[in-house]
């Protein structure tokens, strides 16, 4: 069961354009939604994150939009640059009500973004 569905699988954007990546989740217990950026040969790095009590969060050129009723959230990259070319993963985690204490992340399958000059 894929709990976090991400689209598109790949995306090509011209320099200066807007990159939009979408994710949908199934488990309404999720309460933390981060986006990670991964360059080839590197581990994922946190880009920006949001909680469901807000509908939008902006940090520099990166914005998360969150729609709780639709169980969807998206990443917008404004003024996309060639240096933004990487794979982006949405993820979700929840409070461990079971008591195990793990805030494990459930990831989408990733979107490979290519920003062309």
């Amino acid at each position: 069961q894929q709990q976090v569905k991400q689209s598109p699988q790949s995306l090509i954007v011209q320099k200066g354009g807007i990159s939009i990546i979408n994710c949908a989740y199934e488990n309404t217990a999720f309460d933390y939604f981060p986006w990670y950026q991964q360059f080839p040969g590197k581990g994922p790095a946190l880009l920006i994150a949001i909680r469901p009590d807000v509908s939008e969060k902006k940090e520099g050129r990166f914005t998360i939009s969150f729609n709780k009723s639709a169980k969807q959230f998206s990443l917008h990259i404004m003024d996309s640059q060639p240096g933004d070319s990487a794979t982006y993963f949405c993820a979700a985690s929840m409070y461990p009500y079971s008591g195990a204490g793990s805030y494990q992340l459930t990831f989408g399958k990733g979107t490979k973004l290519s920003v062309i000059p």
Partner: protein
Amino acid sequence: GAGVSQTPSNKVTEKGKYVELRCDPISGHTALYWYRQSLGQGPEFLIYFQGTGAADDSGLPNDRFFAVRPEGSVSTLKIQRTERGDSAVYLCASSLSPSGTGETQYFGPGTRLLVL
């Protein structure tokens, strides 16, 4: 060290062999996670440590996989009788404390395991 480090960076082994993968978390981080990332996929959770104990090992695929963190810092992921399907990048992440959701997990560069 400033970040999470993992060794080796690459490991090639033969089917049936035993391997150990090491993770050095950020100093002071009590929470440690192991994930596995197959080609073209997102990372998948394997096991979580809070301090020295494995608090959640629900993601381990079978009993060939085992992990330890004896002193609450360095962790070792151990895979017995490796199979070709174990080939993946094994990622380690650490976070400051499990005080609530939203505690940033910092990932290491991963160990690329290839089972021939």
